[in-house]
């Protein structure tokens, strides 16, 4: 196939033949052949056995050996398999980095992918890409595991059964595609449809246009949770056709999010977070920082970090925006009369609050920013846009840009067309509507009516089974493509590896259906030939190297917005009954772990604790403690949710009581309860789509009743304790007394820069009162001395660090029942604490505290280890030598932070057994841990060592600042984590540690941790009460 071709052009060589390998029983053995050197981690599996073996029958084996002729107690002999022809730029066992791009949660991120001997092992952000700026999110981190998903589609399916006798090869794949194309040709004439995600890929969209011209009767439909239909409609109503909004946080001093999550699941969250965090951190120099208001029905990441948060049911948001509009016009802002008129009658959830907000906005004209969430209706977006333009934000914080996407129909409209019989052929590119759509739409039934339905998907999922053709999709690390960032920056998606299984990229698929023979590589190149200018080859190489294509596509619209039409749009909207105990409001949201369900088979994401609920492996019906008490529901109770719509919808689901949910609202995350049985996804959670309505993600009049029975929900905090009152509340109490989490208000910081008094309020843990030791410390103090700071003021608890750490450090997945036993292995966890009174939802606040091994100088863990398996390194790290550990767990007991993790079983081996491909992701520079040893954060010691070797070879003793970047620091979208040499006073970490905000958790124990925290600063509006703080 076209790999030869690829090498010449891209100057890279892909190792071959995982195609046959896929089926073969001796997979590991074969993979060793593929990876001459990187195979260390593969051998570990064997190695563990060996150790165990020697351990159990040690002596006898030894004597047997002695009697044998060689007189050796030998390890089984190992083989080395060198390359046959070594690719010129490859050095065995050395990491290589390639630029690429991917689309996660609706945002296009430029990526830098690490590869060892041709195995992609780690994904990171491309610093020169405007949307990632070097960072990524948990989805991007976990994408590399998706590549090695053993359940990914490997077969062409015809009507749900294996075509070509289940022996899909590259050849048979092509043949099948041709056959499907032919079938398409026969039917597409009478009306075809193209159902896809909102993928801003020039090449793909080009092919879509070709498709349209080839089959004129083609409907384009987009089905994508990130698609901003309502916003687009709103913009259309004010005179911008086919447009979208792009937000800039960099000069926003006041940010108001109405049920929006710009720092979490919506929009370009990474870029937003970076800009937002920068403004928060500026407090240290300027004593100024942005202020964030959030109105939302349940905690989003944005809501969790808000300075002021109003807890309000989704259906009330619109009213609130209207009320704000009215307030603003009273303050002399030019708001269209009819909007104001409607605003006057709006149900204002909290007049005092809204008044203060309005004043703040007016005070910051032009430097403010209103955002409305995807789930809100068009008119709400419209009103928000009105306010934005009245405040003069449009063109500054709020930019209107033309969308690269073609005019498209929604899934509902498409389904209607199908039922009308106007669609005979349906092409579905990487969508799974049979699972991810409302029962009310009834797409599944409609699909049956289509003569030819051709589906491209990564899994042989619900839709694949229901379509007449299914083709396996290549992972983006295996395929050529291109992507446009929302600001128009383009990136080439380049593969690092031949497809592990015969499969097609989006472009290859669509091209194939159009009867083209060109491969992805050629398609992408032809697309970009024009833009290159004179020297295409040079430009191409530059693009691949940089990962970004400088000149941007798409343009900013600066047309005059016209609000004349707004008036009648507002008639009769928003007048919704407020929910009650019997008639609750149901809200369905995307999940922070599995998004809309596409990541359901990704073990890392499944085990990633939700930022707020700390729930793993499941979703649940979230309710506020108050509501739960009224209904007598406790966490873990099975409840039935009933919604009356066109047809009655019911779901039996476990309840989870958590503060921050609006009263009489029940929240269910989507994406769980997949019927597609992957080895990971099966049996996780409950399918929220069964409750989804036709066009709203929230519904009125949901009845929630105890259904009897209990369900185990695995959380990583308050393990096994369902009593919220007891633990979360007592916990918050404790935090307050213990000064573990420190929060200040901007007022305090400006009033008393030294913060002596502010910190003094904690009777304990003031770093100023370090107790002096009774002895002189025996640790090395010269040379590189590593330390870390974590800025609680920036952290949004997004979990990216946890995921990145898992990817970098070969951390095992343990599974739900082990999480239930509190045996999860994550090296860095994010502690979430609540503050405020559960009886007053508006007072509830959540805070995040990432916690990993703090590398205490007088580490309590070290002195108790009987075999000196954990001791201090020369550069101040608290080392653990896995193979010295005998597993007494004493260190874990004596660790005040409880960050040490024990391998209660042979987790890594179990993982490899469950997923034989998993081994290919493992980082060859990190030992894979085995049964019976402790593990914990090492400050990415493998990176430290690599850097030290590098600098020593250069003849330098001291590693330059930034020479070592830990995985968590690298991924952090808010740059909350800083790592470096604390011996060097000019290093950024030293400077941060010098800040008054700097404090050590539990410093009163005289453990002198190397990881310290920077206290959170809440920019409270003096008008509003913010007494409830930690």
């Amino acid at each position, binding site marked *: 196939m076209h790999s030869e071709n690829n090498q010449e052009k891209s100057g890279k060589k892909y190792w071959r033949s995982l195609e046959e390998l896929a089926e073969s029983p001796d997979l590991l053995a074969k993979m060793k052949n593929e990876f001459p050197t990187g195979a260390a981690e593969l051998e570990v599996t064997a190695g563990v056995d060996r150790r165990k073996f020697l351990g159990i029958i040690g002596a006898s084996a030894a004597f047997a050996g002695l009697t044998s002729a060689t007189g050796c107690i030998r390890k089984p002999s190992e083989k080395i398999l060198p390359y046959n022809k070594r690719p010129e730029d490859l050095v065995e066992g050395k990491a290589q980095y390639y630029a690429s791009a991917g689309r996660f949660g609706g945002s296009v991120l430029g990526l830098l992918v690490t590869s060892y001997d041709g195995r992609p092992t780690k994904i990171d952000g491309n610093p020169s890409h405007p949307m990632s700026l070097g960072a990524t999110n948990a989805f991007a981190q976990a994408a590399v595991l998706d590549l090695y998903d053993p359940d990914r589609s490997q077969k062409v399916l015809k009507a749900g059964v294996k075509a070509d006798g289940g022996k899909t090869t590259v050849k048979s794949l092509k043949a099948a595609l041709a056959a499907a194309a032919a079938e398409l040709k026969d039917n597409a004439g009478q009306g075809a449809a193209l159902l896809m995600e909102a993928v801003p890929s020039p090449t793909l969209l080009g092919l879509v246009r070709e498709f349209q011209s080839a089959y004129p009767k083609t409907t384009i439909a987009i089905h994508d949770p990130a698609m901003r239909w309502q916003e687009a409609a709103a913009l259309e109503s004010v005179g911008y056709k086919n447009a979208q909004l792009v937000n800039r946080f960099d000069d926003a001093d006041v940010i108001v999010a109405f049920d929006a999550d710009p720092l979490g699941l919506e929009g370009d969250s990474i870029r937003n977070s970076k800009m937002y965090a920068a403004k928060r951190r500026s407090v240290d120099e300027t004593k100024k920082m942005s202020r964030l208001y959030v109105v939302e029905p349940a905690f989003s990441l944005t809501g969790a970090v808000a300075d002021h948060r109003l807890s309000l049911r989704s259906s009330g948001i619109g009213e609130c925006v209207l009320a704000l509009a009215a307030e603003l016009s009273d303050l002399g802002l030019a708001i269209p009369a009819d909007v104001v008129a409607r605003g006057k009658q709006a149900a204002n959830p909290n007049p005092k609050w809204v008044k203060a907000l309005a004043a703040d906005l007016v005070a910051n004209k032009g430097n403010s920013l209103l955002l409305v969430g995807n789930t809100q209706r068009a008119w709400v977006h419209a009103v928000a846009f009105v306010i934005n333009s009245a405040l003069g934000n449009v063109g500054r914080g709020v930019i209107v840009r033309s969308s690269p996407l073609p005019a498209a129909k929604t899934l509902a409209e498409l389904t209607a067309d199908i039922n009308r019989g106007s669609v005979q052929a349906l092409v579905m590119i990487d969508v799974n509507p049979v699972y991810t759509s409302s029962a009310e739409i009834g797409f599944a039934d409609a699909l049956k009516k289509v003569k030819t339905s051709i589906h491209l998907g990564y899994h042989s999922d619900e839709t694949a089974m229901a379509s007449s053709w299914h083709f396996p999709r290549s992972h983006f690390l295996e395929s050529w493509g291109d992507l446009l960032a929302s600001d128009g920056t383009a990136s080439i998606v380049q593969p690092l590896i031949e497809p592990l299984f015969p499969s097609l990229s989006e472009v290859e698929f669509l091209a194939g259906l159009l009867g083209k023979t060109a491969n992805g590589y050629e398609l992408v190149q032809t697309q970009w030939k024009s833009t290159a200018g004179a020297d295409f080859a040079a430009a191409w190489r530059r693009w691949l190297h940089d990962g970004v294509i400088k000149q941007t596509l798409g343009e900013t619209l600066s047309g005059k917005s016209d609000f004349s039409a707004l008036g009648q749009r507002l008639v009769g909207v928003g007048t919704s009954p407020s929910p009650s105990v019997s008639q609750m409001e149901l809200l369905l949201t995307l999940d922070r772990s599995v998004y809309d369900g596409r990541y359901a088979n990704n073990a890392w994401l499944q085990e990633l604790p939700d930022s707020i609920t700390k729930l793993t492996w499941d979703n649940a019906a979230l309710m506020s403690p108050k509501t739960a008490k009224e209904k007598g529901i406790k966490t873990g109770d099975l409840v039935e949710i009933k919604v009356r719509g066109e047809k009655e919808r019911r779901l039996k689901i476990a309840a989870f009581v958590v503060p921050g949910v609006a009263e009489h609202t029940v929240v269910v995350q989507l994406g769980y309860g997949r019927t597609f049985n992957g080895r990971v996804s099966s049996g996780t959670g409950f399918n929220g789509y069964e409750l989804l309505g036709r066009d709203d993600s929230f519904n009125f009049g949901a009845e929630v009743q105890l259904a009897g029975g209990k369900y185990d929900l695995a959380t990583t905090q308050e393990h096994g304790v369902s009593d919220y009152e007891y633990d979360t509340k007592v916990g918050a109490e404790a935090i307050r007394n213990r000064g573990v989490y420190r929060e200040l208000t901007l007022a305090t910081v400006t009033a008393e820069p030294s913060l002596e008094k502010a910190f003094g309020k904690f009777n304990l843990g003031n770093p100023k009162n370090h107790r002096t030791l009774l002895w002189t410390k025996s640790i090395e103090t010269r040379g590189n001395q590593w330390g870390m700071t974590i800025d609680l003021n920036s952290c949004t608890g997004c979990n990216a660090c946890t995921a990145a750490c898992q990817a970098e450090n070969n951390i095992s997945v343990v599974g739900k029942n082990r999480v239930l036993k509190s*045996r999860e292995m994550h090296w860095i966890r994010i502690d979430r604490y609540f503050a405020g009174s559960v009886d007053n939802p508006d007072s509830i606040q959540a805070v995040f505290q990432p916690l990993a091994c703090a590398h205490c100088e007088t580490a309590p863990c070290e002195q108790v280890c009987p075999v*000196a398996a954990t001791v201090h390194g020369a550069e101040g790290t608290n080392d653990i030598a896995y193979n010295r550990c005998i*597993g007494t767990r004493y260190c874990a007991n004596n660790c005040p932070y*409880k960050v040490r993790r024990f391998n209660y079983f042979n987790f890594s081996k179990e993982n490899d057994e469950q997923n034989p491909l998993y081994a290919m992701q493992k980082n060859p520079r990190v030992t894979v841990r085995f049964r019976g040893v402790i593990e914990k954060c090492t400050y990415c010691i493998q990176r430290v060592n690599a850097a030290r070797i590098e600098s020593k070879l250069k003849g330098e003793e001291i590693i330059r600042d930034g020479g070592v970047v830990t995985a968590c620091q690298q991924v952090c979208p808010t740059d909350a984590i800083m790592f470096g040499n604390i011996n060097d006073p000019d290093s950024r970490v030293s400077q941060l540690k010098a800040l008054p905000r700097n404090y050590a958790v539990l410093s009163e124990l005289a453990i002198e941790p190397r990881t310290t925290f920077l206290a959170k600063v809440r920019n409270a509006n003096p008008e509003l009460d913010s007494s409830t703080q930690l």
Partner: protein
Amino acid sequence: METSVTLANLEEHVDKRSPLVLGKETFASVTNTVAHPMEMKTPKAWWICFLIALSGLGVLGASIGYLFWEGVGVWGLNNRVGWAWDITNFVFWVGIGHAGTLISAILFLFRQKWRTSINRAAEAMTIFAVICALVFPGIHVGRVWVAYWLFPIPNQMAMWPNFRSPLLWDVFAVSTYFTVSTLFWFVGLIPDLATFRDRSKGVRKFVYGLFALGWRGSHRHWLNYERAYLILAALSTPLVLSVHTIVSFDFATSQLPGWHATIFPPYFVAGAIFSGFAMVINLMIICRWVFKLEHLVTMRHFENMAKIILLTGSIVGYAYAMEFFIAWYSGNPYERYIFVSRATGPYAWAYWTMITCNVIIPQLFWVRKVRTNLWALFIISVFVNIGMWFERFVIIVTSLHRTFLPSSWAYFQPTIIDISTFIGSFGLFFTLFLLFVRFLPIVAIAEVKTVMPEADPHGHDHGHKHATGGAH
């Protein structure tokens, strides 16, 4: 050393009381009485008990085998509560293993003659209990096959153990304790083994003879023997105290609230003696009844032991109270919280079980009627042992499940393997003990004879009670 003082007092008014050997016992009859259980036909009861114990041992073996095969995960432990039943059982058994050597050594040093008829069984109990105790630290480690790294053995890794770790102190303390107790026990056995060498026939004669080392009652031997025995006692006494002190260091030298307490050493030692005597009472009551030793193991023995239980129980109770006081007085919120949580938190049930069994119930011993009623003694002693197991559980688990950071709070639940391993350890204990009562003299014959009136070389008529030694 509260214990010793009271023991001394005890001594004085005890001697004014009932004699240590009742009835018309002569040297020969003592020998016969003690020999009886070993020479009688094996009673059915013994066989039944033995089979039960043996199956318990089987359960232990199976549990441990499964544990080795699967990993420590078969227990209910987690990343917050890294120790639970394993170390609880370890401390529990070590504790029980204290009465034996204590009765022998300390009471010997203080010339407590009443020890003679119970010390042998007590010492045996010590050794068996310590064997049970040694099992747990051995199997609780994650990688058993490298547990030998705990010992300073030269190796190609050039690695050595860390002598700052209390766990390593444990290794040395408990193994020393086991060795010394065994020696002490064996030295005491030598003359009695000789007795049985001279009584028995055939194989038994050979085996007893082998271990009697050719003892012939030579007084030149007795001279060194008694000196050696006295010194062993003198060495064992601080050893007994040191062992449980060091065990308590596992907790006291760590820094967890609820563990990090200076009161632990005395409190643990008292607790150990407390549970140890309770176990002795249980065992002696049974032996006495089964083997008709009423004349040798008298009510006075039980009463004295009951008094010691009452005393040590009160010390333990005082320690509980003191812990609370210090927690409050220190003003340390972690300490305060952990103790409030003990009494009111998820594990309150365990805490109150402990208080009831260890502090409240033993108070019944103030009443003489209770002290002298075998049933009462037996039942109360059982409660004491239950209570002491819970004490260790409370200290270990409740402290671990509510540590400094509320984010790391967890709840521990035992698995079936936890339980079976614990029950199995009783199987091991009773197997060994039953073998002991069947094949070895459960009362130190030679020693008992020394406390008989006839033993006095200056007594002119054998009926005469109060002998005043050291004429000439």
